[in-house]
Structure formats: C-alpha cells, structure tokens
C-alpha cells in the first residue's frame, strides 16, 4: 500500500449509495449478532473500513469475542483466535521454523503461526508478556513478519482485534505505548440496557448467536476500501485534525489548560493519519462523499483516547483519557482563527 497524492475524483452519489448499501449489510449482520450496541458496531465497522486494528476493552461477557467472530463470518475472512496467556511465546503467534526431512535432507521449514489470518482475535492481549505482545508490532504496522531473517507477508486484508479486561489486572502486562499506538481504535465496550438484555435472554437461550453468512466478498471489501480512500478530506477539516492532534501535546500553544496540566505525552502523527482515515470511513458510513467536522469529532475519542499518556495527577483529579479528548474537542475550534466577537456566526 502506497500513499500518493493524486488529483482526487469525488465519489458520485451512486457510488456512495452503493458503498453505503454494502456497509449497511455488514452493520445489519453485526446487529443481528450483537444486540443493542449500535454505536459499538458503527465504530467497529468504521475501523474495519479504515483498515485499522482495534482494541476492545470491557468486562467479561459483553460480547467482545462474539463480535469479532461475527465479523469474521460476515466478511468471509480467515479467522484465527489466540488466547493470550503469560506463558505464550512470540513463536506461538508468528510461527517458528521446524526441522523437517525433505528429499533425504533436513532443513528448517517455517510453520506459519495463527497471525497468518485475515482476522486475528488477540483475546485478553494484556495477559501475555511484553515480549510476546511486541511480536505483533511489525505485523500490525507493516503487515508482515520476519522470522530468522526471512520476511513473510501477511494475507490481505489483515486486522488485529484485541480484547482486554479492565479488571483482574493482577498478573497482566499493560500494553506498551508503541503497541497501543498501533491500534487505530480503542473501543470501550459497555453493558446494554435492560430492554436489550431482555431481548437477549428471550432470543438466545444458550447464548449462541444466530448463524451468519457472508455478506461481503473480498472484492466488495476491496471496493469499499477504495471508496473510503476516495472520500474527500477538505483542507479546513485536515487543518482541524492537525490542530486537534497538536493540541494533545502539553507544550502546544493550542493545548487547553487541562491538557497542559494533566497530559504528559500527546498523540503521534500516526494518530492524525488514523483520525483522517477513520473520519473518511465514518463519512462513507454516513453516506457522504466528504469528511466533515462531525465525522472527526465522532471518531476522536476512539482514536486519540488510548494515545494520551496522562499525568498521575489526572487520576487524582478524575481526568480520564476519554474525558480529556472530549475536552480537547470542545476546546479546539473548527476554524483556526477566532470569530470576531461582534459577529454571530
């Protein structure tokens, strides 16, 4: 995948409608598997369309794993699940060379690990050691793995969907910042309402989701990816994204007072790229050929939240990463120049 700046053609209304129809099929399918989590499903879809990796954080039993499995079924992609444990080794994920007899001679043959799949579910990723966690670094960023000097390309598309539990932190290894930065989205999964809960226990006697069939082919997915890339990002919105990401740095002039006080490290340029990409996907999801300020605001918390390193005093004052991003979104104006006070826009 290469990034080249070319004269962009605006998607036609028909192309947008067609893309939206395909996306709707995917979202509807997910909605049949996961009840009452529309916002979560939209975000997952957005992250998927932006070809990003996502980290789902939530209490056990909220349907995180089920969501990923449903996604795999709906997309018809190769799916692997790895349950991360403290004794898991990097080789257990990326694969390892094994000595084999072949034509009377012995040689090391690389046996691919579970990472060689389109959709990798890294369940409870924070239970593995940092060494094992870091095995995913190259795969997530460059979509390839290197073992004993040999580089192996991963199948396309490649998504890592990791889950982690915010409780039972004993014996876990918090993800390092470099690892977190590679996740496009970190989505907090919350519980559902009592109505949804009633619907679940009425329709799922044993908790099994309905059987899902493939709704998008590989070609259709590629088409969707191309459509997302064709979504226009206006200069003013790009400027807004740049200022928003810049404002996460405490030494920035755009940073609000709370950010200067409580944030130790801000978001990286990778975050800005992810923000633009996911905003494009959100625009296509909304049936638009362009990104608006609303799309940026919609994905800002999921993109920037886990990339901020807060000061210890932030915890004392009750500032979470999500709250800090919400504050940033409020503080940074859409247009860099202040509107004159004598003018009501």
């Amino acid at each position, binding site marked *: 995948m290469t990034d080249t700046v070319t004269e*962009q053609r605006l998607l036609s209304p028909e192309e947008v409608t067609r893309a939206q129809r395909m996306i709707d099929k995917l979202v509807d399918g997910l909605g049949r598997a996961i009840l009452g989590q529309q916002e979560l499903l939209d975000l997952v879809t957005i992250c998927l369309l932006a070809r990003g990796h996502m980290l789902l954080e939530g209490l056990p039993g909220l349907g995180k794993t089920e969501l990923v499995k449903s996604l795999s079924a709906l997309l018809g992609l190769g799916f692997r699940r790895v349950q991360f444990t403290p004794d898991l080794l990097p080789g257990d994920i990326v694969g390892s060379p094994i000595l084999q007899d072949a034509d009377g001679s012995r040689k090391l043959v690389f046996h691919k690990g579970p990472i060689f799949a389109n959709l990798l579910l890294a369940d409870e990723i924070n239970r593995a050691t940092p060494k094992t966690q870091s095995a995913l670094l190259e795969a997530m960023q460059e979509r390839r793995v290197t073992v004993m000097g040999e580089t192996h390309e991963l199948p396309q598309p490649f998504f890592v969907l990791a889950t982690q539990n915010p409780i039972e932190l004993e014996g876990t290894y918090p993800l390092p910042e470099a690892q977190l930065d590679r996740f496009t989205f970190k989505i907090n999964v919350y519980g559902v309402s009592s109505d949804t809960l009633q619907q679940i226990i009425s329709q799922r006697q044993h908790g099994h989701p309905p059987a899902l069939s493939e709704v998008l082919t590989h070609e259709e997915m590629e088409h969707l990816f191309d459509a997302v890339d064709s979504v226009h990002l*206006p*200069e003013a919105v790009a400027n807004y994204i740049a200022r928003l990401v810049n404002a996460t740095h405490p030494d920035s002039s755009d940073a609000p007072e709370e950010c200067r006080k409580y944030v130790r490290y801000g978001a990286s340029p990778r975050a800005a790229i992810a923000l633009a990409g996911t905003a494009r996907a959100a625009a296509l999801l909304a049936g638009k050929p362009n990104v*608006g300020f609303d*799309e940026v605001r919609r994905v800002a918390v999921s993109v920037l939240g886990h990339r901020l390193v807060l000061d210890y005093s932030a915890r004392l004052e009750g500032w979470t990463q999500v709250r800090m991003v919400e504050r940033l979104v409020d503080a940074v104006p859409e247009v860099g120049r202040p509107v004159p006070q*004598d*003018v*009501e826009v």
Partner: protein
Amino acid sequence: MTARDRWIDRHLRRLHFGQFLQRALEWLTVYLFCFGTTVLVVKLTAPNLWPHVLWVGAGAVPVTILAWWTSRTGQFTRGESVALLDRSLGAGGLLMTLTEAPDEDWETHLPQVEQRWRESLPRIRPKRFAGTLALPLSFTIGACFVPLREIAANPVVKNTAGQQATSELENMLEALEEAQVLEEKEEQTLRDAIEKLQEETADSPLTHEKWETVDALEQRMRMQLEEASVGVAQAAQAAAILAKAGDGEAGELSAERMAELESDLIETLRKMAENGSLSAGAGKMGLSKSDLERLMKSGQLGLPKDPKERQELLNELSDFLQEEADKLSELRGECEGGQCQNCGQECEGGQCQACAGNKPGRGGVTRGRGDAEMAWGDESDDTGIKFKETVLPPGMQEDPKEEIIGLTKSEPEVDPATGISRQAARADDPAAGRETWNRKLRPRHRGAVRRFFDSAESE
C-alpha cells in the same frame, strides 16, 4: 461566478467587517481612554491648552483607518469562510468539498433555498460594539466637562517678611555709609551680620530670634547714628561759641571753658577724620593732609595763633559742622514744627518715634502688639481655595435713556399710549432723586447683596 460563490463572498465580507469592528473597538477604546486622560491632565495642570486639546479628538479618524489597516493582516481566508458557512448551513463539509472539487452531481445536495443561505450569513452585533465603547466614550466626555483648575498667575514670593526686614537694614547701612558715620571695622561687622541674616531668611521664615537680631542690628546702627549726630552737633556748637568768643560777642570765656570747648571740637574732628567725613570739607577749611593725618593719629590739631586766621577757621568749622549736623539730624528723623522731617509723621517728645525705632512691635516680646504694624509672612498660592475672586460686570443696569433705540432723519414720533409710563420713566431718571434705591441690580448681583444683608442680620 455561481450563486454559491456570491454567498461565500458575502459571508467573507461580513467576517472582514466584523474583524474590522473588533480591531476598531480595541483601538478606539485605548484611544478614547488616552484622549480622556489627556483632556483631564490638561484641565488640571495646563488649563491654558484648553480647548485646543480637543483637536486631539481628530485623531479618531487616523486611528480608525489604522484599525482597518491592521485588521487586514489577520483576515479570514476564503477557505475559513467556507468552513464557517458550511457549518452554518449544516452541509456536513459538502460546501468545502465542492469549493475545492466542484461536482455537479453533488451541487444539488447543497441547500437550494435562498433563505437558508441568507440565514447562514454572520450577523453583525453593533450592540456589543456600542456597549463596549460606551465606557471610554463616557469617560472622555466626562473629562471634557471637568472644570478648569485655576493656576496661580503670580509666582509665589517666599519669605517676603524676611526679605523686607533685611532690605531695610541694608538701606539703613548704606545711608550710614553715605553719611560716613561708621568706622570701617564697625561697618564691616554690620555688613557681615546683615548678609548672614539675608542668607538665613532666604528660604526659611523669620523666627523670633531672627526678628530680635533684626531689631538689635537696627538699634545698633541707630545708636551709632545718634552718637555721631550728637557729637557733631556739640562740636558745631563749640565751634560757634569759640568763633563768637573771638568776635567778642559771647563775652569773656574762661580759659578752662575755652580749653574744654577746643578739646570737644578736636575730638569730634578726630572721629570725623577717622570716618573720612572730614576729608570732603578739609580743603575748604584750609586743613592740609598732614593736619588730617595728625588728627587721625594723635588727635592733636593746633588752632592758629593768629586771631584772624583762628577766627576764620572757627567760622568755617562752625559752618561745616552745622551742615554735617543737619544731615545727620535729617537722617535721624529730627522733628521740626511737631513733624518728622524724615518721614512726615507726628513727633512725640520732640522725636519721631517711628524713625527712632520706637514704633510698636519693634522686636522681641513687644513685636505683635495690637497697634503694631502687621508683619506679613509668606504668601500662599490659591491652590485649593474654595472661593475665588471673580470680576463681575457693573452691577447697575445701564441707564435706559442712554440706549440708542433707533436713528431717524427727523424728530422721532412718540406714541404716548405705547410709551413708558411717567412713573417708570421717573424711576429710572437720575434727576428724580430716587435713583439710589430705584436702580435695578443685575440678576447676578442680587444673590451677593442678599447674602450681605442676611449675614448682617444674623450678626
């Protein structure tokens, strides 16, 4: 240019105008505060610059132009204007997109109703502008109505009483020098004392010690003058008696009396020779330089043995000494006919008390007696004086008869019906003898007259 571009241009112009208003508000606020402060300072410290200082108000025009000029530097770009208009329209970024990448298919997705575009244009709020400007404007207008402060026209003269006292002493010393009454040593001592007193009273007021010093110096000079005056008068008398004795008019004088008179005469002449007052008349009297030196050293001067020469010298001496005695008498303030020849005041006991220094309050504990002259101290400026003297126009209205009510070529026609009644005419007629209480005061004077009579009644 499409309709969309026109709306964007209108949006941009309004933003630019809003920026100009904001900048103008900032500049004008500062300017008005500065202007008001300047007016206030001028009114309180340099009232002669009022009302010329109001010309500074013309600076509002260049300040406004400057605000317009500076507002151009940070103006909204077209892209920013489009972004704001997009948000106001609720176009979700489509307007921005179509501005950058025009597409006819999506053009129809923009609002098509003109009213929607119009409502999306920014609205100028002059209320805030006017409200913010009201405070500095009120301050400036208020400063213009602050009353002018009166400045002391004349410089404050410091320590006038001290200067006057030392000046009088100096004049007196000069008069004594001119009369050659004082010895050189005594003269220098008095001059030093007066100069020292002048220095001390230049910046500080006269204290009672200094008043006593002034009086002591004055008394000391008067005593010198009196002593010299009496001595010269006695010598003149002795010379006259000796001259008459020579003529035989005074009868026979005993030898002792003659020796005594001669001794008095010689002693006076010696003193006069020491002071230098004798040198002027010595030539007339035929006294040589060696005679004068001998007088000054040993007080010996032999009168000529020849009766004729002796008589002639005594006559000249008598005339000269009488002349000197008259001068000193005049300087002392001798009385003649009950009046002081010097100051013209009435004499008491054959002497002018004022010239003799015996005036009331002449110093020490006696100064300040009820009948003493007022010794005015330092003058103060009229800063903070509540009541200021103002020159009012003449209190009486002009005589109506002196007013020219018109010019005619012939005799004016007077209609008795419309003319002034006789009583009214008489009221204003000085010849009627009632003008002293019938004259009409101007309204501005009535208050002052009323206050005068009210205060008189209350007392």
